[in-house]
């Protein structure tokens, strides 16, 4: 890390969705930081709130029915949550850029690649047409696309999945952002293409001293790209810390259970651990710890009190006092 001051600091973020009869607490008090040149992964299964968290940083949560019910999002010491539309527009795509999961739906099918990259550049900077084209070509080269001049004239459907994702990354890089938020950017891609895209992101990050907030459900990807991990469950962060600390010595029962349920060749012949029960409805979360109905370590206090975050070494923290106090064995 270059310096200790965080680039992005999310503090006690709460994002709720209101309907006539209920309030879904999609993000329920989430705090984490992303340092300079750091890759932080938000990991969790469907419905844990990771995408809503990312959208909140970009100011893309639809309001209403969404509502920022609390917290701050500090980007270079400024609270993005109090920015108006114009101020957010100046940040979006410029200092913070986003790469989405499905490149085919994120790219406009009726415009050429050149038009779309050009737009990404011109939204924030005025430049003559030939310079825009030149920079677009350079961006395609930076993301490893062969024959960039020709590709600028292509339409999205003429490119492969991997190429489209590279174009999305090129668009995100167009204005040299300090932070890229990548939401499951490789889920829709083949495994070997995924490996290429991950290597690409890594090299770009190094070259441009960028930070990355990576959102995924794939623990394998996390093990490759993360500096630090935040494990999310039912709108809260269950555990966070440096990658090795969380993956090798997990301190929250949910993280432990998740790792124990991953299939691999080593476990052949053994039954996979499967977490009993289901993820709670965000509008009807249990009292106390949201994970307690499914937790094999749960005690009475877990059902009544919302657990405090417990600190381990080196920034490793987990929201489970039972494990903290009892030093229980891993699953």
């Amino acid at each position: 890390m270059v310096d200790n001051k965080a680039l992005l600091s999310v503090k006690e973020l709460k994002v709720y969705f209101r309907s006539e009869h209920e309030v879904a607490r999609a993000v329920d008090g989430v705090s984490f930081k992303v340092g300079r040149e750091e890759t932080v992964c938000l990991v969790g299964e469907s419905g844990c709130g990771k995408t809503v968290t990312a959208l909140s940083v970009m100011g893309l949560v639809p309001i209403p029915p969404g509502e920022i019910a609390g917290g701050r999002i500090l980007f270079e010491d400024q609270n993005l949550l109090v920015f108006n539309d114009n101020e957010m527009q100046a940040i979006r795509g410029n200092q913070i850029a986003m790469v989405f999961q499905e490149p085919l739906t994120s790219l406009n099918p009726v415009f050429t690649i050149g038009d779309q990259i050009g737009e990404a550049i011109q939204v924030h900077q005025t430049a003559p047409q030939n310079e825009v084209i030149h920079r677009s070509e350079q961006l395609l080269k930076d993301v490893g696309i062969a024959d960039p001049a020709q590709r600028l004239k292509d339409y999205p459907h003429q490119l492969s999945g991997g190429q489209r994702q590279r174009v999305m990354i090129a668009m995100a890089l167009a204005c040299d952002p300090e932070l890229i938020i990548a939401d499951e950017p490789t889920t829709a891609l083949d495994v070997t293409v995924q490996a290429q895209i991950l290597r690409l992101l890594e090299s770009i990050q190094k070259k441009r001293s960028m930070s990355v907030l990576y959102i995924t459900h794939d623990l394998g990807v996390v093990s490759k790209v993360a500096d630090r991990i935040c494990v999310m469950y039912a709108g809260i962060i269950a555990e966070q810390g440096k990658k090795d600390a969380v993956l090798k010595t997990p301190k929250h029962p949910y993280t432990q259970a998740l790792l124990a349920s991953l299939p691999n060749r080593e476990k052949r012949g053994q039954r996979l651990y499967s977490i009993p029960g289901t993820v709670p409805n965000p509008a009807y979360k249990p009292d106390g710890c949201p994970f307690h109905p499914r937790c094999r370590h749960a005690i009475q206090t877990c059902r009544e009190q919302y657990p405090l975050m417990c600190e381990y070494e080196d920034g490793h923290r987990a929201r489970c006092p039972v494990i903290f106090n009892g030093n229980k064995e891993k699953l």
Partner: protein
Amino acid sequence: MNENGSQNTIILQVGNLKKYFPIRRGFFQKITGWVRAVENVSFQIDRAKTLGLVGESGCGKTTVARLILKLLAADGGQILFNGQDITQLDEKEMKPLRKEIQIIFQDPYGSLNPRMTVGQSIAEGLNIAGIHSRSQQEQRLEKLLKMVGMSPASSDRFPHEFSGGQRQRVGIARALSVEPALIICDEPVSALDVSIQAQIINLLKDLQHQLQLSYLFISHDLNVVGYLCDMVAVMYKGQIMEYAPTDALFDHPIHPYTHLLLSAIPDVDRNIDTEMHATADEPGRTLKSQDGCSFQDRCPLVENRCRHDLIEFEQAGPDHRVRCWKTARDGSDPFF
């Protein structure tokens, strides 16, 4: 024959299976070439065993599934089910055999009729299996739902009322309703969350054990394949590149494409130190198939011979076959 010398019944045997699709161009839709979607594919599945069919999108693994199910007619080769040649059977002859081979799909949201209750979807299979009486159907339905870990009360509900994992269980119950010998699982857990994946994988294993089911497990996820499968076939552009018992494939991969796949998977337990990089990003965009090895555009070991010769499927070890003249020979790992 397995190690004990006893005979395992071979449920499915596929030999030199071929399926070509024509490329048509122009106003008169003239055939200008062929896509060799499935080319000389051979493998077998023993009773109560699982064969993993691994490959990336477009490699032909779903086409292979359709050929085995006889949803597509093969252009060449043989399909033997329980020793019987079913390749050329017509619709009428195939009908009594259809119950023997079933399929579970990848998308739990698309594979169930939204206008039929869970019970109705599963009962369709029971009707086909000749169970028509109301009480018998209810009895079987209850048993099937219990077998897949769902409450009998589910039968009156509609698919949209269930989660992805639960719908997948319904799909499994439906496949089981006709008491098949072989189930083709086409990426059955790819669309599910990790904790649900584990439940479904455990279920498939239990059922295999209880019912002596055989599985053709199609997947791109080598971790799941490594956990579940006894044998693995690696496919690329229509051809099987490597075919071996699971441990042999992971511990001693031979084909360059297998190396590429294994090194691309993060966190997979493997014995190789080196990471292999393909020379090109993805399978090429050309539709027409080429001479020589289909991996020539991406293989770091490619030579002239690879572009012209017919590459045979060679024995590289006991039960271990590879489609690569270069690496199959002496079994030494070219990547060390």
